[in-house]
């Protein structure tokens, strides 16, 4: 069997350093490079989606049509949602996974490094397609990020086709990324790193990756059915042919609800890393954290129709989905309890990552409680499609997912750059964000309860005050994110060297390697006791 080929390209370059110039980033197979690319891309998308949010809030600053055409307003809400979900939050978590999972489990790299590069580089192209729709005839998609049929089929602008194909390739990217993460965690752990010793960030990502592989193909299926209905005469979502627009909602939310947890489980993981470090205690209830995460993932497949209580479900369906949804509060409650119990009697210090993590626990819990309110089918008839829903999911996504990402970045940045953060500036960013986010989203609860519908550019006069407050908050929050960009850039340029451990209470393999982490780490697997 050895009629072997002699010249295998790259055969003896296993321990090369980073390549020079642009090629390093285009052709890289290094998990740290790819993690960095994901994180910068996510930041760019976060700012893009953020500008759209500020345009929306400017329009809503006062009642009446102020700034943009109603049609363009719809495009803004749609694109803001799509960009934030698929462009900002998801890639940020994948970036953190790329950087940290191999470091945490003692692996030399991700399991399939070339596919890892592919997963990333699809994204800029997918978003180029999506964003280009803003400049097309008929405008960008305007049917909301949930793209319900028939708004997204019969009544959609022509650009919907570009939207469909960009979702397809984004999905391919997510599936490949998730396969890579699962293969890495299951197969690349250092000797002695048993499953129940995995850091929680790794555990939560393992479960998230499973969710991604299970539901991204369903998203591909639903956009394919849209494509067929729009262009090839089928009637999946058209009752005239025997189909049903509600079918769209079922398939979409079968993807959509697990997707919600895809955006929060890694956040749980990050917070579960940070709180023990700054409490100088072990995480309280490690095993229960793992089981709680797994239960949330399983339940996420059984609750999708709680997004559809007002669509005309049979009573049995309403009841089933109501109770199944409420069950999720149990494992989530376990998690919140464990975070609080970890802090109890700890030697707490409040460096910037810890501030974001503690704010996460408090504010995410508020978002969780409003979720519980929405889960109650009879009262959801009142809340459905109001600003109460907007308040709810922004509480879990902004001071939830986004705060956890900020916390993670501030926590691991010294490991990436080798420099310590300017704590004063970090804290300034935190407090402005914390205040801004609450001024923006808290009044939306009241607006929603009073009946203000979501996704409209104009509103009745009685909603004016709270809208003005929310808009002011949005600008405080939005502009304080420039401080985040500043902090990251300053950190890269800083000279204050970080130690390997970085934080006094930090535990885990990632803190055993020097800061900045060398280009190749754990080339020989470390031993874990």
């Amino acid at each position, binding site marked *: 069997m050895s009629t072997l*080929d002699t010249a*295998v*390209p*790259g*055969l003896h370059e*296993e321990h090369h350093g980073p*390549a020079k110039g642009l090629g390093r980033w*285009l*052709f890289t*197979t290094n998990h740290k490079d790819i993690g960095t690319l994901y994180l910068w891309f996510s930041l760019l998308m976060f700012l893009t989606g953020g500008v759209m949010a500020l345009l929306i809030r400017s329009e809503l600053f006062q009642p009446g049509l102020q700034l943009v055409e109603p049609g363009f307003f719809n495009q803004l809400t749609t694109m803001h949602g799509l960009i934030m979900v698929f462009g900002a939050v998801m890639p940020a978590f994948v970036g953190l996974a790329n950087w940290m999972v191999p470091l945490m489990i003692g692996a030399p*790299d991700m*399991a*399939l*490094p*070339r*596919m890892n*590069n592919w997963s990333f*580089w699809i994204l*800029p*192209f997918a978003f180029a*397609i999506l964003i280009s729709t803003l400049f097309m005839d008929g405008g960008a998609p305007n049917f909301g990020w949930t793209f319900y049929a028939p708004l997204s089929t019969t009544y959609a602008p*022509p650009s919907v*086709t*570009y939207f469909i*194909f*960009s979702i397809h*390739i984004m999905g391919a990217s997510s*599936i490949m990324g998730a*396969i890579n993460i699962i*293969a890495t965690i299951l*197969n*690349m752990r250092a000797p002695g790193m048993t499953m129940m010793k995995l850091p929680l960030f790794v555990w939560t990502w393992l479960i998230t990756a499973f969710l991604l*592989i*299970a539901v*991204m*193909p*369903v998203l*591909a*299926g639903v956009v*394919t*059915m849209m494509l*067929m209905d729009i*262009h090839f*005469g*089928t*009637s*999946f979502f*058209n*009752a*005239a*042919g*025997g*189909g*049903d627009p*509600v*079918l769209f909602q*079922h*398939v979409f939310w079968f993807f959509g609800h697990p997707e919600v947890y895809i955006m929060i489980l890694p956040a749980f993981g990050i917070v579960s890393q940070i709180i023990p470090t700054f409490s100088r205690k072990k995480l309280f209830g490690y095993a229960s954290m793992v089981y709680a995460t797994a239960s949330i993932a399983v339940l996420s497949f059984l609750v999708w129709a709680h997004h559809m209580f007002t669509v005309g479900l*049979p009573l049995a369906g309403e009841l089933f989905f109501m109770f199944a949804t409420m069950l999720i509060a149990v494992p989530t409650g376990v998690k919140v309890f464990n975070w609080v119990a970890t802090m109890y009697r700890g030697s707490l210090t409040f460096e910037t990552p810890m501030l974001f993590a503690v704010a996460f626990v408090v504010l995410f819990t508020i978002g969780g409680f409003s979720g519980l309110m929405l889960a109650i089918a009879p009262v959801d008839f009142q809340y459905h499609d109001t600003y109460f829903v907007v308040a709810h999911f922004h509480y879990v996504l902004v001071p939830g997912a986004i705060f956890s990402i900020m916390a993670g970045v501030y926590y691991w940045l010294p490991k990436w750059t080798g420099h310590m953060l300017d704590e004063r500036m970090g804290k300034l960013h935190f407090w402005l964000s914390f205040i801004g986010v609450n001024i923006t989203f808290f009044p939306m609860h009241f607006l929603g309860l009073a009946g203000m519908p979501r996704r409209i550019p104009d509103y009745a006069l009685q909603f004016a005050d709270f809208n003005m407050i929310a808009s002011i908050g949005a600008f405080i929050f939005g502009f304080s994110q420039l401080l985040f960009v500043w902090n990251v850039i300053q950190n890269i340029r800083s000279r204050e060297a970080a130690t390997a451990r970085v934080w006094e209470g930090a535990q885990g393999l990632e803190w055993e390697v020097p800061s900045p982490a060398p280009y190749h780490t754990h*080339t020989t697997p470390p031993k874990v006791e």
Partner: protein
Amino acid sequence: MSAHASYYVPAQSRWPILASVAMFLLAFGAATLVNAITAESGTGVGLMMVLAGALMLGLILVGWFGNVIHESRAGLYNEQMDRSFRWGMSWFIFSEVMFFAAFFGALFYVRTLAVPWLGGEGERGVSQMLWPGFTAEWPLVNPPDAEKFPGPHALVDPWHIPLLNTILLVSSSFTVTLSHHALLRDDRAAIVRWLGLTVLLGIVFLGFQAYEYIHAYTELGLTLHAGVYGATFFILTGFHGLHVTLGTFMLIVILLRVLKGHFDPAHHFGFEAVTWYWHFVDVVWIGLFLFVYVI
């Protein structure tokens, strides 16, 4: 440290970024193309982009897989690497299962809930006001709006071509396994024989499927426009057919590799991955045969 002991981390590669460009061309081109077809404004740029993207992706896959085969045969992959590939392929097949699950779910929903509701079952009588004459049935040959969606006048008889195709595909799962067993005892002639037969069965299956589609369109009136029965019929069988096509390509590739002397009883994950995929395609077909054709 020898290459055998450590996990192989490939050096920089040009394939992924090129593949991303190809995917961009395919996606943007496909959108431009179908929009142009619907607007009846010619196929020009979109078609060019799709063709360029497809050609590019094809060449890239040849080059990329070529690299992987090269590295594998150079002995760079240890057992741990092998396990990464196994996990990768398993989860990829799981993602494919979920893709089909979306369409099967749509079929079950339409059949057991949406169509009976349209017919006025339960408290959902609104649709009765829209189409008072509509009666629920499955297969749905009389859609509510027969002008926009003229139903089929006849259905595909499951006991002719579909049954034949079931026999073909199930047999091909056996022949591919026989080929694998031949590989395990290193009987090269038998590997080629059984693998060749598998490819042949795949191609005959596709031929019958094509014949059935033409028959459905020209004689049965069973089309994409024929209401939701036609929609579910074609999306399920169509995507299955595409997967059989892909699987057949994969079989041909490993057949060529066998002929070149690749694979031995201990190292042949490339071969095994294709057999996994082929079994998956077979299992999906059994689901289709039952739920689309028979029941």
